[in-house]
């Protein structure tokens, strides 16, 4: 493999696939009931070492690290510290890198949050989901609304200046009043960043099984749409702007790490089931690790990469991804960056199709840019499919 240095800083994603309890809506690669083992931490360190030397990334700039899960806040502060210092030794970690950890309110206390901060975390993302105990109950969360509020306050008190909160809406039976209350209570906490997700019932989850059995009503799309539009409006009034389909931030607090996914930047995914993307060869390549933590560890202990699959993108696939991801962002699809990568006619073809086929209230066509309105944001996948046909 060529030792090519990447031009732009890349992101590191570290997956911690362990949870106290699996949430009934969660389709991520996570396993309930086990602790984060020493074995898993060492495997992560080995994988960093492997990738760094394989791709010659020792001097490659990393400007974001993101610990996701699962429940990464189950990590001890010392294990976290170990992982971050290994990362710093294998790559060229920027001084002001964004270092995020996802936190479940049920797993942290003041001491732990302080420890995380000392270990190098400067941004935390709290899985609040709702500030209504009924909703939390339906979502099978292990914490109450007041515990969520408490962990947020603790984090602020520990000095975190960049706190994000995850909220879930569009639940079966949820009313607009409940959503508004969630947003109102949230406003009092004044987070810097909010991820607001419409509940999506995915295969392999408890919710999916319940829905199949008729025990759970499927989310009503028209209601979800109204909630989304209303929430977007309320949050904007509160000073948060939507910079991606489900993500809102105060100016300057957009997630640097997540933006990499939507702008086609490089990232390495470490840990069981994690995905990596490098624009290194041709139209880009992607690989992903095996799902089971034990197989992941086995592979690394045996001196192998824990690869499950790999793909080298074609131009068409790369274009498809570019359209799919950029239409999710506020910046939209930009002529300049698209033409730089895909040639002169690429943007023209897309804009012609967009003009022809996409209803005007869904799309914003400015000079050199295709972006979506709030209504359009709800149709982003449909529009991406239509204009890349």
């Amino acid at each position: 493999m060529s030792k090519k240095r990447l031009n732009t800083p890349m992101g590191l994603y570290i997956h911690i696939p362990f949870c106290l309890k699996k949430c009934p809506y969660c389709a991520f690669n996570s396993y309930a009931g086990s602790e984060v083992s020493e074995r898993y931490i060492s495997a992560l360190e080995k994988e960093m070492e492997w990738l760094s030397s394989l791709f010659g990334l020792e001097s490659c700039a990393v400007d974001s690290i993101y610990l996701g899960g699962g429940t990464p806040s189950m990590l001890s502060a010392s294990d976290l510290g170990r992982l971050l210092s290994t990362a710093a030794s294998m790559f060229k970690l920027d001084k002001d890198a964004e270092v995020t950890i996802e936190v479940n309110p049920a797993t942290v206390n003041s001491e732990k949050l302080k420890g995380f901060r000392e270990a190098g975390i400067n941004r935390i993302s709290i899985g609040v989901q709702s500030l209504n105990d009924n909703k939390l109950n339906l979502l099978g969360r292990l914490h109450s609304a007041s515990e969520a509020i408490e962990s947020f306050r603790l984090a602020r008190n520990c000095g975190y200046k960049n706190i994000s909160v995850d909220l879930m809406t569009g639940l079966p039976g949820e009313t607009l009043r409940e959503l508004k209350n969630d947003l109102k209570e949230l406003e009092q906490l004044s987070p810097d960043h909010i991820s607001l997700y419409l509940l999506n019932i995915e295969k392999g989850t408890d919710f999916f099984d319940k829905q199949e059995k008729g025990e759970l009503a499927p989310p009503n799309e028209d209601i979800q749409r109204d909630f989304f539009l209303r929430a977007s409006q309320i949050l904007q009034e509160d000073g948060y702007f939507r910079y991606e389909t489900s993500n809102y931030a105060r100016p300057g607090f957009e997630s640097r790490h997540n933006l990499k996914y939507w702008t086609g930047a490089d990232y390495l995914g470490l840990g069981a089931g994690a995905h990596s993307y490098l624009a290194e060869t041709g139209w880009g390549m992607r690989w992903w690790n095996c799902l089971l933590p034990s197989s992941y560890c086995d592979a690394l202990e045996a001196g192998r990469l824990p690869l499950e699959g790999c793909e080298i993108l074609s131009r068409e696939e790369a274009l498809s991804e570019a359209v799919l991801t950029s239409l999710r962002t506020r910046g939209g699809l930009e002529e300049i960056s698209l033409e730089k990568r895909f040639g002169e006619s690429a943007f023209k073809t897309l804009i012609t199709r967009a003009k022809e086929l996409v209803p005007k209230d869904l799309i914003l066509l400015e000079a050199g840019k295709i972006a979506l309105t709030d209504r359009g944001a709800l149709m982003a996948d449909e529009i991406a499919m239509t204009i890349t046909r």
Partner: protein
Amino acid sequence: MSTQNNTRNFSIIAHIDHGKSTLADRLLEYTGAVTEREMKEQLLDKMDIERERGITIKAQQVRLSYKADDGETYTLNLIDTPGHVDFSYEVSRSLSACEGALLIVDASQGVEAQTLANVYLALDNDLEIIPVLNKIDLPSAEPERVKDEIEEVIGLDASDAIEASAKTGIGTKEILEAIVHRIPPPSGEISRPLKALVVDSWYDTYQGVIMMIRVFDGSLKRGTKIKLMATDKAFDIIEVGAFYPNMRKMDSLSSGDVGYVIAGIKELNDTKVGDTITDEQNSADTPLPGFKELKPMVFSGLYPIDTNQYEDLKDALEKLKLNDSSFTYSPETSVALGFGYRCGFLGLLHMEIIQERLEREFHLNLLTTAPSVAYNVKTVKGEVLTIQNPVDLPPAQEIDYIEEPFIIASIHTPGDYVGSILALCQERRGVQLDIKYLSSDRVIVEYELPLNEVVMEFYDRLKSTSKGYASLDYEMADFRRSNLVKLDILINAEVVDALSLIVHRDKAFYRGKEIADKMKELIPRQMFEVAIQAAIGTKVIARASVKALRKNVTAKCYGGDISRKRKLLEKQKAGKKRMKQVGRVEVPQEAFLAALKID
């Protein structure tokens, strides 16, 4: 060679499943035409499809030699006729080549609709009819009741009907004796100018067209220069012979004989069924009576589902046409369905058989449009147009009137279902002709019906309405003036050609609404509202709409989701590529099919 006096030409009339082919097999076995080892069940039905469905499509013939109780040896020519109404012309030609016929009736089931039609054809041709009660060995056999029925329904003396079982061989000898003694020998003179009837013809890759013929007057042999009187074409005979049942060369065929002629003919169209062969040098004055040009009555578009199969479809149609001159095809394009062929058939069964052969023998995956019929359109300018495709119908203001084909349908049913069958026929614009109550479980209902109403799943409805008991037979009647209109289906104001149809004005609203509602169910939601309208000319008579899709986005799209999401979109895109674009609207093929199939 046998003499004319010792020759008997006969055919077998029977309803499907009443045992015609099995009986033919017994006759072949008994007379030693085939050994048991050669015997394959139902030898005469050559095509798989015939054997499977128990119907005969092409005529078949076999020459048997039988030593009768009177000590004489007779030549018996069995001409096996096609068994379905779509081929009634061929049946009538086959029958006219015979002097007699065996009427096989199932001893428990009695006379069926199709049998009746063919018996009438036989009586029209002055044939001596020998009733045979088959399956007499079954415990459910009721020979006396069925004899009564034969007398009552057909008006035929059944007192000396032969009781037989083709399965066990009971009655085979009695049948052979009856053929010898009750069917008259062929009339006709060997000394008169040649007159031979083309009973059937088919194409053989090695020998060209082979004609099955019945000689009435004169004789023919290798070298005879023959003329086909309808087409006025002349050919030199290369070979004559008979079927034993395999083809066997003979020196000559003369008056009374049945056999085959090969004359280096390349085009099946030159040898029309029912035509008369004569000697070019010593020509007969008049042809044999009854010749008719066959015209397709039912039409349907055939489209390959995989557009790459278009050429294969074309080749397959050409090959089928080689052996079936009554079937027609011409290229057709549809905005909705792409490139295909509009095919013409004698009737519904003929259509089904062709479609099945295309799929089975040529491995084609076809999409078939709703069957339609041919209309005669008189324009205000006084022209008469034949319209086979609703798309070709001139604008309403240019039409003086439209005529549609009618049939006379004869439906046999148990009494319990008469009410619902009458309702079905009325609903299909039928005019009642007669109802005959033979007994509580045997009623014959006769109706005049527009063919247009019969081609649209009438048969399925008849079967479901009678729990499968009713049987249908029909014959073409004539063209009649009707109040017909063209019904267009519009999707977001664009007419969809493949969905246009010609319907009776009184039914237009109902049909239009039905199709619009069905399309509404099957067109997926899109980014805008889709309006579906049914219209006559510019007047919209029914409408439905597919609401705009409001949400299609994944809530979360992070590192691991991107390639999964992309693959999902690629898959959906591929699905969309199979859809047909009508304006901006994407319409799945199933929507067309369902709308076309609607009843």
